[in-house]
């Protein structure tokens, strides 16, 4: 049986935020995406901590971009999900949707 990686809530959100067709996900964009979609302000350092764990688990890969003046000559690090990361994200979302079925039934029951 394949070994499953267990993802925390923030890890899952960060992993999903790296899924961008342009492959241009970096720290600022990821944290902005999470803030827009979830209404939660996530510190950049926390995003990077989650990205570190995801990279250690082999769920995302990273590459360095070009340094720019507005960043004080520092390069962006771009993140993209690996094949294992995409599979893991799909499975987690499917599991959450199945579990959420109980929530709908609960809300429909007589008080």
């Amino acid at each position, binding site marked *: 049986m394949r070994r499953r990686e267990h993802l925390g809530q923030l890890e899952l959100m960060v992993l999903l935020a790296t899924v961008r067709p342009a492959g241009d996900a970096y720290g600022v964009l990821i944290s902005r995406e999470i803030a827009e979609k979830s209404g939660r302000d996530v*510190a*950049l*350092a926390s995003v990077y*901590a989650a990205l570190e764990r995801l990279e250690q688990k082999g769920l995302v890969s990273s590459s360095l971009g070009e340094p720019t003046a*507005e*960043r004080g000559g520092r390069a962006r*690090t771009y993140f993209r999900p690996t094949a294992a990361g995409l599979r893991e994200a799909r499975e987690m979302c499917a599991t959450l949707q199945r579990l959420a079925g109980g929530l709908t039934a609960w809300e429909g029951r007589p008080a």
Partner: protein
Amino acid sequence: MGRQARVSVRSPPVLASWLLAHLATGYRRESLVGDLLEQYQEGQSAGWYWRQVAIALGWALVRLPRVALFAALTRVSGAATAMRPRLARGRTFRLLKQLSAALALVTLGAATLAWAAGVTTHRPADAAQARQCAAQAVHGDCASPAHLPR
């Protein structure tokens, strides 16, 4: 011709930047610093910058034991590797080998004794047994009265 676009740069709080540069460690630090600068240039406040730096330092603190342990282990193993050829020639190496073997044996023995003591210590499973044990403790029969109900 020859006119260069000037980039106006807002300077973030100096102390916060210094702390970030000198105390934050680890994964993609340069990219994190760049991201913070980029967002600060886009109009974030100094308070926001300080909060981000504080969180980054918190993460650095969390990872500190791991980093320190790794550095210490690397240093110890490096020193041992460097010393080995010299030690291997002399009596000191044999003495160290014997000492470490003796230390390992003593540790193993102590661990076994501690385990045996833990197994034989009487731990009552329920309240009734604990009460019975309390009665025995009055007569000094109970091995560990610390767990008894008050």
